[in-house]
């Protein structure tokens, strides 16, 4: 299992919430090398409804203040793979990267008090249909990996894992307390 995507859902926001300030925030993160990856550029997709929102493109990953399926969240997509890592370690690293970015974003003055992320509501996908098609077999492979990674963060038995998405979509699980 590789190329994990982790989305940390945001708590409900005001109806007129504007993700636009993330453009300035992400540019600043590039200026200040705020994240460990090589940060490349910012893309604005506010014009696309239920789309990727504001994207911060890095060499090894993509960060986005994402609005896919109408749910706001911080989406982290791993692009590169360290072959030496185990699958649970890869997922743990992806979770840590997503949480770090979400905490930073919450703390930015542009979003102060207007954007909070759920502590225990995430979605995990595997962004490679060949290695992980959205089938029962793949899900059976993903679940233990996911439990190892999430147990380490939230504690064993404190959450529910559900498979989501149609067979055409990426292999996806929602994890909530």
């Amino acid at each position: 299992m590789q190329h994990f995507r982790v989305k940390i859902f945001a708590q409900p926001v005001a109806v007129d919430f504007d993700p636009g300030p993330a453009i300035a925030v992400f540019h600043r993160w590039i200026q200040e090398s705020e994240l460990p990856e090589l940060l490349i550029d910012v893309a604005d997709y506010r014009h696309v409804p239920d789309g990727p929102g504001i994207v911060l493109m890095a060499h090894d990953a993509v960060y986005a203040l994402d609005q896919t399926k109408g749910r706001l969240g911080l989406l982290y997509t791993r692009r590169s793979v360290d072959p030496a890592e185990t699958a649970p370690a890869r997922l743990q690293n992806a979770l840590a990267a997503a949480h770090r970015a979400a905490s930073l974003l919450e703390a930015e003055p542009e979003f102060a008090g207007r954007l909070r992320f759920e502590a225990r509501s995430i979605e995990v996908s595997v962004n490679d249909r060949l290695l992980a098609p959205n089938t029962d077999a793949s899900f059976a492979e993903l679940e233990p990996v996911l439990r190892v990674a999430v147990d380490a963060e939230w504690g064993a038995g404190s959450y529910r894992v559900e498979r989501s998405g149609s067979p055409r979509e990426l292999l996806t699980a929602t994890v909530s307390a």
Partner: protein
Amino acid sequence: MKTSNSQWKNRLAGQIAPGLVQELDVYENEVALRKQGKIDEKVFAETRLRRGAYGQRYDNGQRNDGKQTRKLEYPEAPTKGPNTLWDAPGMMRIKIPYGGVNAVQLEVLAELAEEYSDGIAHVTTRQDFQLHFVHIEDTPALMRRLAAVGITTREACGNSVRNVTACPIAGVCHTERFDVTPYASALTYFLLGHPDCQDFGRKFKIAFSGCRDEACALVRMHDMGAMAAMRDGQRGFELYVGGGLGTVPQQARLFAEFLPAEELLPTAQAICRVFARLGEKKNRNTARVKFLISKLGIEEFKRLVGEERQILAHDDRWTAYLKDIDTTLKEEPLRPSSLLEIKPAMPEGFAEWEKTNVYRQRQGGYATVTITLPLGDITSDQLRAVADISRKYIKETVRTTVEQNLVLRWIPQGDLPALYNELRAAKLATPGAGTIADVTSCPGTDTCKLGISSSRGLSGELRERLAEKQFVMDEAIRGLRIKVSGCFNSCGQHHAADLGFYGVSRNKAGYTVPHFQVVLGGQWQNNAGSYGLAIGAVPSKRIPETVDRITSRYLADKQPGESFQGYVKRIGKAACKTMLEDLMVIPEHDAAPDVYVDWADAREYTIGDIGVGECAGEVVNPIDFQLAACERESFEAQLALEAGDASRAARLAYESMLHGATALLKQRVPVFAEDGDTVVGHFRTHLVDTQLFHDPFAGAKFAQYFLKAHEKWELTVSPERAHQLVEEAQLFIEASHACYARMQGAKR
């Protein structure tokens, strides 16, 4: 980069045509060899371009972050072309001949956008799809997945025959002579990889239109354009050659009033052979076929093509496709036709949407529906939704359009409300197709290496503002077209719009300010029947106000029934410029810092270490005045052209370049005589030989405009030549501004 890349070959075994498998194996090997440094970078660059793998902004490993230019420290690896780093993300262009795409293809595009890009597929102004931020090592697998569903990226970029475009309503249109779809398809696959098309100096674009007067295919701005025509009951084409936009836009010239259908493929082949043999190869800036035709003259070009046609070895494919022409690619509906029943309780927003996004087909009871895509963008989820809808209501008869939208053909009219509801659920039921709110844009500074201003940022802003107002707008304004390009290369087709904009920059007190040139009076109708001319540059952040100003003046002052082009022509470009003069003024940096930041960006546009000196706000360098004077002369040249005085237009255009060069030289040479010969001599020595005047991408192109105008000066010129000089002068002045910025030490 995906570790599964190497496995796709086996996974898709048997699903890809054997010839194509071999081609893709070769490409995959070339990628591997280049990674090992065993292929020259220039050779690899052209190889990948011919496979549709294109460069993207910042792939030279440098980016200005708003404070400083920083090196992007990619892992150590070879380059994928001169000055293009291996690991830097790139763009993948995917050819969609005549825009035709089916459900499974849409689903694969959705997968590729998710797995290799950023979740967005982008429809271009030439009916292609593009994916951005793609790693070069993912491209072979990506191409295999496309090939397995019948899509090729071959010759999507590079010096080749690009995607062949056609009217998206071909076959269902009321005004067409006949359906051009099978002809466009036949020509696509005949020329794809054809040995006679492998040695061009530049790209070659072809378009098909079913009729002469509508806009759909923009035939007159293509290297080769074919309009359906009938003679004595026989099908054929009115054939045009040598059109193009770019820096020097040219209307295509008539090649044949009537070319019988059976002559289409061999004639295209003969044209390609002449272009390959005689077209410019060294200087990319004059390598399009329009320059060859200008050099030879259309009659000589026709003679050469005729000669070539005579000696071509016969090829059965020239006419083989004709025997099934009425059945190949013939579309059929999935459901029986029906009429729309107007009920009191129609879905919310249906009436507005139906008014702009539904075209009643020639075939009674059926409609073609436009799905308006904002800036041509569509998500993976939406692509899957369109695939589902296309299976449910139609036989997957979907096409892309040059206005960056999708159309669904053969929808029974009675199904429109239900279809609307499904599109609305997928957030794809935005009204306003083909209106002023349906803004077209090239990628601009978002991803294009050549972008000067943020065309997508501006277009997104205009779209949002106009979408709100469109329902209360006067129809005369609502029907106007806006097209935006990020630079003079015109990928946003700004010349063919009522209101066109292309990105330029200006300097003020040591800062560089993003601007757009305003281009008015272009014609979308008649297959891009006439092009607009530049009025003047306005700061990017003032463009929405510019649109408001121009459209409200038009509404207030237009005569009954007067079109926008007619209005612009009647009041003249001088009055248009006067209308915008206050908006062209650049405010001081401290008074309006937002003007110094482009749309959808947060970085200050001006970069480098230019300090804001204590006098910077007040003291204006004389060169600013001199360059402004050149712009005025260039503008007067446009007016002279408009008044039909070609000689005066040419003289003013030349003088504006002479004075621009003089102004720049004064920064370098203390004293010199200001006659033409002396200025040209110094210009060569101090600005051309030193490459100071060179554009980072176009090289000496703009300098050559001036040098050639001087060398070949004639008192009497044709209107065509005068038009060209006027266009060239405008670009020379833009280059002078850029050169001046470089002299000052600004980075752009």
